[in-house]
């Protein structure tokens, strides 16, 4: 299992602050696989180029090259709106 953490307004699209993602230990998860596993409204929003992705707290330079594994935390980060 992996965990998806949608931040900001993506949490509204997800309907929850955290989504468990069933994932066998042996198989990884790529970007298309992630989108396929998420609620449609959230998956559609993710292609916005301003949305960043972090795996276990490390920002990905290119989210399309996501490779996540069981146990990972995948954060979906929309543009920040400041302090």
């Amino acid at each position, binding site marked *: 299992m992996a965990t998806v*953490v949608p*931040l*900001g*307004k993506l*949490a*509204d699209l997800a309907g929850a602050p955290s989504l468990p993602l069933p994932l066998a230990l042996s198989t990884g998860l790529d970007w298309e696989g992630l989108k396929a596993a998420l609620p449609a409204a959230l998956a559609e929003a993710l292609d916005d180029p301003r949305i960043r992705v*972090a795996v*276990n*707290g490390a*920002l990905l330079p290119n989210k399309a090259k996501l490779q996540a594994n069981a146990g990972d*935390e995948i*954060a979906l*980060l*929309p*543009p*920040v*709106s*400041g*302090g």
Partner: protein
Amino acid sequence: MRDIRLLDRMFIPGTLIGPFTNANPGLGGVCTFVGEVRSDTGVEALELSHYEPLTLPGMHELADRAFARFTLMGLLMVHRVGLMRPGEPIVCVSAAALHRRDAIDAVDFCMDHLKSAAWFWKREKRDGQWHWIEPREQDHSDLARWQA
């Protein structure tokens, strides 16, 4: 003296600034900015969310950059998260230095980055409805001032 914090409850800036100033003996100047939730028409509450694994490390990196860029004796950077009411402080940045230009510019630099490059998401409640705040163009142009 370096003090970087995320706080999930109400704080009183004066209780931080006095001890911070005293912790930097020999300083020439201290500049402090305190941001509060504005009492705009109809705003009942503001909520700031963050992503723990990125937000606090990001504030520490920002402090590193401020120390590298300006000649500072101390830097205090405190940011609220969670639910806030109008009039409550959101952010307090204070910089102590030998010279005023470093202190003022460091606060300006940290505030511009906290507003548009730190990992916070903001929504406000108006007439009982929550609305996400989009990034403002002004925030991005403020940030561009430091990229020379």
